[in-house]
């Protein structure tokens, strides 16, 4: 007796029925939402569609790696915002990893004072909301630092004041472009050198010392590019005027506050991840390595670090993603990141749906790329088990 494909009595029939009901409910909801949305948009005379992206934005963006004027389109404004997000995220990732590793290892230190201080750091910074820390940093930077007319001189030509951090930057010229192009070449050459060294070691058992040569190669190729381009040496140097600090490159106090807040907060989490990664390697591994006669350096590099990294890298990547997502708090202090720009755009033209879809799409894309990368990494380093 063949039951119908939609029979409630068979497992597959029941499955189909449930899914049909679910799909029907969802479609009804979606249609209902679409109708009311269109009605509401018409009532408020808000336009639909992504056409607004081509129109001039009309607002100013205070800083960023992407050159922008208020006559540029909304699309360009969003890109400028994205540039700012990536800028603070990249700097944040690097600095929080460094700080977090130091503090994480500090928690494992034999020195009790170091241990306590690092533990206190982690406990305090993980138990206060990031927004509170961020606002505190921002208000401290804007209120406690001196006026731009009287900045703090950190290094020759590096000034810190209420208007931010000013530092000398090279005047862009052909030589710098060549140097930049030489960077990936230098990287490739270094990698090739290490490959050669490893092949040599596997063949003969003798390890050629390529460390210094690699460093030289890595620096030499971009330097060669710089020289070929005319060896530009002109620097744009900030100078203190009676009113402010003029010239040079710099970062705004908003960027500084955001960076400090993000790094301080994320470093606490990175510290915990590093600590648990190191603790996750069974002590027997160190003992076995010592018993085999490996030096401490070799044991660290060949036995401990690979195993610790396996445990550390996945949660570390999620912390990097969290940092990128947390950079959206920039909207609270006026740093023009992607979410801030979207906020301004929504307030200006009311097209909330489109703008929110754009920013969510960007974050999801970053997530997706990272997840794929993580998948590749995990498959490569996964311990082969029965």
């Amino acid at each position, binding site marked *: 007796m063949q039951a119908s494909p939609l029979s409630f009595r068979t497992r597959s029939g029941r*499955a189909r029925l*449930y*899914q049909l009901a*679910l*799909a029907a409910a*969802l479609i009804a909801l979606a249609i209902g*939402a679409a109708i*009311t*949305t269109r*009605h*509401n*948009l018409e*009532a408020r005379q808000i336009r639909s569609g992504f056409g607004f992206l081509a129109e001039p934005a009309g607002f100013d963006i205070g800083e960023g790696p992407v050159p922008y004027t208020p006559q540029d389109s909304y699309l360009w404004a969003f890109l400028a915002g994205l540039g700012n997000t990536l800028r603070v995220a990249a700097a944040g990732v690097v600095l929080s990893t460094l700080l977090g590793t130091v503090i994480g290892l500090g928690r494992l*230190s*034999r*020195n*009790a*004072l*170091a241990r306590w*201080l690092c533990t206190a750091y982690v*406990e*305090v910074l*993980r*138990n*206060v*909301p*990031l*927004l*509170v*820390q961020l*606002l*505190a940093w921002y*208000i*401290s930077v804007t*209120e*406690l630092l001196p006026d731009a007319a009287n900045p703090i001189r950190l290094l020759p030509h590096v000034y810190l004041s209420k208007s931010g951090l000013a530092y000398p930057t090279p005047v862009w010229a052909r030589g710098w472009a060549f140097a930049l192009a030489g960077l990936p070449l230098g990287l490739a050459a270094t990698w090739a050198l290490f490959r050669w060294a490893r092949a040599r070691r596997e063949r003969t058992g003798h390890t050629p010392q390529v460390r210094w040569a690699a460093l030289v190669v890595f620096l030499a190729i971009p330097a060669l590019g710089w020289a070929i381009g005319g060896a530009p040496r002109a620097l744009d140097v900030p100078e203190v005027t009676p009113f402010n600090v003029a010239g040079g490159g710099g970062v705004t106090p908003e960027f500084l506050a955001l960076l400090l807040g993000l790094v301080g907060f994320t470093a606490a989490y990175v510290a915990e991840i590093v600590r648990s990664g190191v603790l996750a390697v069974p002590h027997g591994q160190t003992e076995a390595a010592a018993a085999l006669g490996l030096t401490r350096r070799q044991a660290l590099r060949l036995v401990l670090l690979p195993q610790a990294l396996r445990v550390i890298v996945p949660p570390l990547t999620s912390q990097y993603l969290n940092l990128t*997502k*947390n950079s*959206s*708090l920039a*909207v*609270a202090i006026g740093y023009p990141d992607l*979410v801030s720009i*979207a*906020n301004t755009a*929504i307030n200006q033209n009311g097209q*909330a*749906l489109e703008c*929110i879809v754009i*920013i*969510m799409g960007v*974050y*999801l894309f970053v*997530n*997706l790329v990272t997840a794929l990368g993580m998948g590749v990494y995990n498959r490569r380093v996964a311990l082969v088990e029965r």
Partner: protein
Amino acid sequence: MSEPLPTPVRKGGVAGWLRRNLFGNPASAVATVLLGAALAWAVPRALHWTLTGAVFRADEAACRALGHHAACWGFVAEKHRLILFGRYPYEEQWRPLVATALVLAMLVATAFPRLWRRWILSAWAVVLAVFLFLMGGGALGLSRVDPGEWGGLPLTVLLTAVAMTASIPLGVLLALGRRSTLPLARTLASTYVELVRGVPLITVLFVASFVFPLILPQGLPLSGLARICIAMTLFEAAYLAEVVRGGLQALPRGQYEAAASLGLGYWQTQRRVILPQALVLVIPSFVNSLLSTFMDTSLVTVVSMYDLTGSLRLALGDPRWRGFFLEGYLFVAGIYFVSCLALSRYSQWLERRLGGWARRTREARA
């Protein structure tokens, strides 16, 4: 006969401890000296700033005379009601005080595993209803206070409580959906969870502020507070779904098989066998979720709600006291810190306390 060995170095006692932990090796000794010097410089100054030199009265002149050399806790003394209760009408502030105290008492009661019975859920529902009534008023002689005026700590507590309780059923459904055999349910649940976890909370709050008014029909106005509560629930549910899913995955397949061989259906199995075990397994993670939610509520300041963080900014808006922002932030940070520390210590205690099968199952799976 060989030379006598030198007397062994003292290992025990205070001296031994100091030697091992502070001067164990040259690097450690150097670190101790440097850190010790730094602390010796910083600690007395910090003490002077916070305690000995500080002004505790709400005396504007005295505070101004201090400059930045010591703390003006007078700011907190003057503004603490604004910070703690937001823009709630001054005379009626006993109401949010009582309401918050009730919720906190309920929280402490829930902390004891001995009291985990069916009635505790109904008790929570009653407490939340009383909370809403006390805050909102409008009957029994209590004047009506619009939700737009609720603020400060009670608002933070309300948002946390609502988001946590409402996200549990949704989170459980999403977790079951992710593990379902129905492809559509699995796709929908996974898409939702991955989407919401991939975007910052601010974007979800933006959706609540900007998009909900567009999607909902005109005849169904939701107050700003209700929209924010819904947004936070939808957000936290995605994270809770992952926590519950971890618990579901930790259960051995044999439990499903035993229930199936006895003839139990899907929902019967989930209700009586799987969920009771999975939810208890993940209680420590659940408490961590609660902690995250509590800290996440601070973001509602971005969408113009005056929770604890928002009302601090309100208080700092007063130009007379603006210079004493550090004291204000320390006060608010202190409140968050104490609550979060208590919650995380509780979570660790709970994990140790949950004896027997829960710990064994979790350890077996680890």
